[in-house]
């Protein structure tokens, strides 16, 4: 069931009523203050084109080792998942998640006529367009358009960044980008902005649109800040950018905020040169931050309600290049992490390295089908309306 505004208001008033309860009752109240079943999706973007073949390693594939005499990760180093698949050694926590059944891996995800340019391919992933289409809105922005008609605040989808990605820009509504709640609050908490906003009286459509955005921003900034302080996280996070960002996200998930989608990026995975060190560094940051985040969610009994989805604009060439790196490729794997997955482990067969197109993998799962599944099964949204077409729904969530 999608999270309705009406429900939210009720929960909001419940929360304030709880302030007047005796202390001992409040302790019982704590878990219930969190809206039960408020499913949240966290999209984690690996910017730059992560090398999927060195993320989930085809440990028994000769072609893999032949194509990557230097870069190939040996079976002994990889963290074994199944007979044929191993994980990058910098992701030990992902192995733990796999073992406990909280990790799903979708292999060989891509789209027809893949583009090798970072920007264009990212555009295609974020807008969920075909590769010969130019769409000026993003898939999560259109989710807002479909779900949030009449919502007062654009807080249903938040990006932890200074700049809003195309993914969160809808035709009519847009998500909100913030580096952290406090910074947003202090930058919008200028009396001048508040006063001109309060006193404005315009009829003309263009000015009105700008004032509407201003007004939503100001009220959202207050709302987010207030929510983020309500349940300060006691969990220790690594002092990395992703660590900080996931801590911000967790503090909001634990509050009563109506946010359904969080969006955050890690990069750059563009490993043309000296791939091993760079990917290791980024994966270590990823591994440790996700570790803290999952612990935090679990200790607050919210892990079942959160699904993390990772993606990258493309994978890399099967063969290594001459500089200890890999060049832009095509299909790639995606991770799904959460306590509420319906299917776990390897969700589909690994890429077929026998059947390549000019040295690139041929995709077998359209990413739009993955989006459709998350929208339909997890966020209870109208995937066809949002994606403009019916794609096959899978069962992993």
């Amino acid at each position, binding site marked *: 069931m999608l999270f309705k505004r009406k429900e939210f208001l009720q929960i909001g008033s419940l929360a304030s009523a709880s302030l007047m309860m005796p202390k001992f009752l409040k302790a019982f109240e704590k878990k219930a203050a969190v809206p039960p079943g408020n499913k949240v999706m966290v999209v984690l973007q690996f910017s730059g084109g992560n090398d999927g073949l060195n993320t989930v390693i085809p440990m028994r594939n000769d072609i893999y080792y032949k194509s990557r005499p230097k870069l190939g990760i040996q079976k002994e180093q990889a963290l074994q998942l199944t007979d044929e698949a191993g994980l990058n050694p910098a992701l030990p926590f992902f192995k733990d998640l796999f073992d406990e059944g909280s990790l799903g891996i979708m292999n060989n995800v891509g789209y027809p006529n893949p583009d090798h340019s970072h920007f264009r391919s990212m555009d295609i992933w974020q807008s969920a367009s075909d590769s010969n289409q130019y769409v000026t809105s993003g898939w999560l922005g259109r989710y807002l358009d479909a779900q949030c008609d009449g919502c007062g605040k654009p807080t249903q989808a938040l990006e932890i960044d200074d700049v809003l990605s195309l993914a969160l820009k809808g035709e009519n509504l847009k998500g909100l980008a913030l580096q952290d709640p406090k910074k947003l609050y202090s930058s919008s908490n200028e009396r001048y902005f508040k006063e001109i906003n309060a006193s404005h009286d315009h009829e003309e459509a263009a000015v009105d649109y700008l004032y509407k955005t*201003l007004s939503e*921003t100001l009220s959202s900034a207050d709302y987010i800040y207030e929510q983020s302080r309500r349940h300060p996280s006691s969990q220790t996070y690594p002092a990395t950018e992703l660590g900080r960002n996931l801590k911000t996200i967790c503090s909001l998930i634990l509050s009563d905020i109506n946010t359904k989608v969080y969006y955050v990026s890690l*990069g*750059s995975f563009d490993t043309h040169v000296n791939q091993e060190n760079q990917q290791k560094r980024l994966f270590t940051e990823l591994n440790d931050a996700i570790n803290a985040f999952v612990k935090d969610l679990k200790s607050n009994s919210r892990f079942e309600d959160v699904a993390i989805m990772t993606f990258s604009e493309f994978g890399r060439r099967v063969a290594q290049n001459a500089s200890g790196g890999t060049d832009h490729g095509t299909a790639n794997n995606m991770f799904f992490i959460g306590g509420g997955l319906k299917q776990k482990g390897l969700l589909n067969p690994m890429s077929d390295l026998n059947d390549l197109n000019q040295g690139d993998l041929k995709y077998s799962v359209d990413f739009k089908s993955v989006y459709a599944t998350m929208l339909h099964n997890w966020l209870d949204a109208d995937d066809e309306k949002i994606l403009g077409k019916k794609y096959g729904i899978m069962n992993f969530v």
Partner: protein
Amino acid sequence: MSLTNQQKNQHLLWRAAFGPMAENVNELGDVSQKKLYKILEKTSSKKPDELNVASNAFDGLMKGVQDLGQMQKLTQDQKKQLRKQSVDDIKNLNLAWLNEMINSEAQLREKMSLFWHGHFASRVLNIYFQQQLLNVIRENALGNFGDLLREVSKSPSMLSFLNNQQNRKQHPNENFAREVMELFTMGRGNYTETDIREAARAYTGWGFNVKGEFVERPFLHDNGNKTFLGKTGNFDGDDIIDIILEQKATAKFITAKIYKYFVNDEVDNEKVEKLSEKFYRDNYNLQKLMNEIFLSDWFYEEKNIGTRIKSPVELIVGVRRLIPMQLEKPESQLLFQRVLGQILFYPPNVAGWPGGKNWIDSSALMFRMRLAQILTNAEAFLIKPKDDDDTMMGMEGVDKNPKANQLQVTVDWDSVLKVFDKTSREDLSQKVNDIVLQTKDSVNPNVLKRYVDNTSREGFIKSTIIELMSTPEYQLC
């Protein structure tokens, strides 16, 4: 309230140029729109000086490549160095062009060029290609659309961006043919998929050599008959362009896009129909089309004034024209472009920047409302733009823990203050407002009063300008 002559002239300057300059804003009260436009037309009629920023380092390397005959013989390091130098040079090209927009007399030409830069959008990382395409656009911005289209279509920038180098008789690549029709000329609905395939065959063999010169490679060209938009023959790329220009749909598509950009997002079909008929009869003469628009009465109607959301580049340039300033580090303007979503030479895709409401989201609006304060050094800012993998190529490009930036800037406030020399204290507020804002209604004067600096006349003028530039209203022109 009827519009004043000053307002109408400012409207013309915001649309046909990049807004009024401090030094001439006082002359706008008396001159007629017709006369002002004639000045713009005249100053833009000269052939522009080419922008050339390619550094010696790049030139040297490139010449080396040309002598070698092919890129393949370069070492990895040389290639990397070449790409990095090219990306740096494109930044310089960005700033050099921005400077033209701010200071050039040929305002109409530069404004038109910015329009074409978004229309013929190409995102390639080769400084030679970008520079050549920009110069083609600036030379033909007000000339003949057919010439412009032909030159752009033959530019290495567009040929490489749209993969026509790979368009060969044996393996046709339709990308170029498709975008020429869909985005550059007729728009969807005026041709079929078969027309695209046939046009692609005609374009086979169009490419460029190692010096970046256009070449037709005869043995990659398909010499068979093609049937395109109802005509059959052994067409080549030029024939296809001729046939496209024969279509009234082309005149209509271009006219509608120009109307949307220069007049109003809401298209008035009747007007566009009339304009495009004439544009077609005038054999795609762009100067005549623009004259028709800017000399009309309807262009100055209230519904067209102060209703268009400025693009980030227009916003930055507009502030800098009204408030003359010297930036110690002009490259900070690249950061503003990135944060606000419009980096020159890096359009999101071949369809260009969508514009309009697409410029605005919460964070972009908040930054826009701080821009004037940041530029005039009233405020430090801390912002980290997104990484750009296209230009960073895997290198760590930005400081992960940036400190708050404070611009080093010298503002020439004297020129601004001079504008108000003859204005009495009680008229000051209104006059500043009339010069800064184009919207029908303004900010509530009672609110404004509480925030301006009342300690001196000078402080009052400065702070009123900055406060007014820090409003939603200022985002419009």
